[in-house]
């Protein structure tokens, strides 16, 4: 394992993605907001699996719960599960072309959101499955730009 370098870039990008969640949107459009935090998390897991893993996923999930005002621990299990799956398959997914990669990311988001919906049903917190699916499609459209930006910053700051 190499010595860490410029790891702050990872956390800065995750925080930036979480701040994006705070931007105002009309009430009925909130479902279409791309989940940039999850995308950034998946990118870093894919790029630096030895730096970013399940613990980071847990932290991002807790931060999301705080921002949404949801019961603690609602978002984390889904993100952790998706991250775990990504950790087992990152070498394969890195070889995919952009379309295949987007589809893989869509699958991961479906998994993590599905887990969240299931937990919501379990503890009687309202769920909006269709808004969720629409939001995921929007999110996946942002995969390529997010990947490009983060890859450039990773190379520029030499994060490893």
């Amino acid at each position, binding site marked *: 394992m190499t010595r860490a370098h410029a790891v702050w870039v990872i956390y800065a990008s995750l925080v930036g993605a979480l*701040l994006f969640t705070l931007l105002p949107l009309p009430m009925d459009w909130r479902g279409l907001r791309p989940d940039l935090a999850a995308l950034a998390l998946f990118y870093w897991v894919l790029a630096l699996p030895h730096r970013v893993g399940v613990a980071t996923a847990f932290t991002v999930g807790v931060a999301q719960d705080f*921002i949404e005002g949801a019961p603690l621990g609602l978002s984390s299990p889904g993100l952790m599960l998706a991250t775990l799956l990504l950790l087992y398959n990152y070498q394969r997914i890195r070889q995919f072309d952009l379309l295949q990669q987007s589809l893989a990311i869509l699958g991961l988001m479906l998994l993590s959101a599905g887990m969240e919906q299931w937990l919501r049903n379990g503890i009687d917190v309202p769920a909006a499955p269709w*808004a969720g699916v629409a939001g995921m499609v929007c999110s996946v459209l942002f995969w390529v730009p997010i990947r490009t930006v983060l890859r450039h910053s990773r190379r520029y700051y030499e994060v490893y």
Partner: protein
Amino acid sequence: MLCLAILFIFRDHPRVTAVQRGAVDVVAFTSNIVLAPFDAWDRLLESMQSRNALQDEVLRLQQENRVLKGQAQRLASLLSENARYKALLNSARDIEDELIAAQISSVSPDPARHLVMLDKGAADGVEEGQPVLGAEGLIGQIVLVGEYNSRALLITDSAHALPVQVNRSGLRAIAEGSGDIDRLVIRHLAATTDIRAGDLLVTSGLGGRFPHGYPVARVTNVEIAAGDAFAVVSAAPASALDRGRHVLVVAQSSQFEAAAAP
């Protein structure tokens, strides 16, 4: 495992709640920073309003003020009349509710929920469970209180339900949130019940959380399917929940104190 444990077992543990209360202030502070440019833009637009527009606004407000003052005169006489009757009946006198003015500073990004952040917290006297009023009626209740900010759940959230009363007939019912920002639903009303479109629903005061008599919604549609035992009643909130930022938190309601006194 840890988060599942927090989620299912320790969800209402005092320490978890304390962490969530602390987080309310942190999130509100961060989101105020993120929103600052938007607010600044709004203020810029406001300051560029023409003199004429402002004069019109002042005129409109003066007229509104005159009308309200006129109504308040009647209110004063009615209040004293009411107090006399109550004295005759030997029951406690209603004092006015204590209100805290607050502003909605942001809306939760969770699309399935109708949660808003208010800019007043425990330091200002806000407590969990207090009702929140909009310009025209009840809009929600406080669910989580930080030191300087709090979260309120709107009445249209699909996890929210409140006891109401039809103003015209006194009929009691439960108005549930539908998940749509402009609709409440009353289920389990017998199909033969006297309720029709246009009826005003007010809080009934049952349950002891919302004081009696605040307007909640107006019935828009009564759907009675042939052969069904129950009608499905839709109502539109009296106060537009997705418009306006200024709200009032009912900090202390005399009704409950009167009820609690021996």
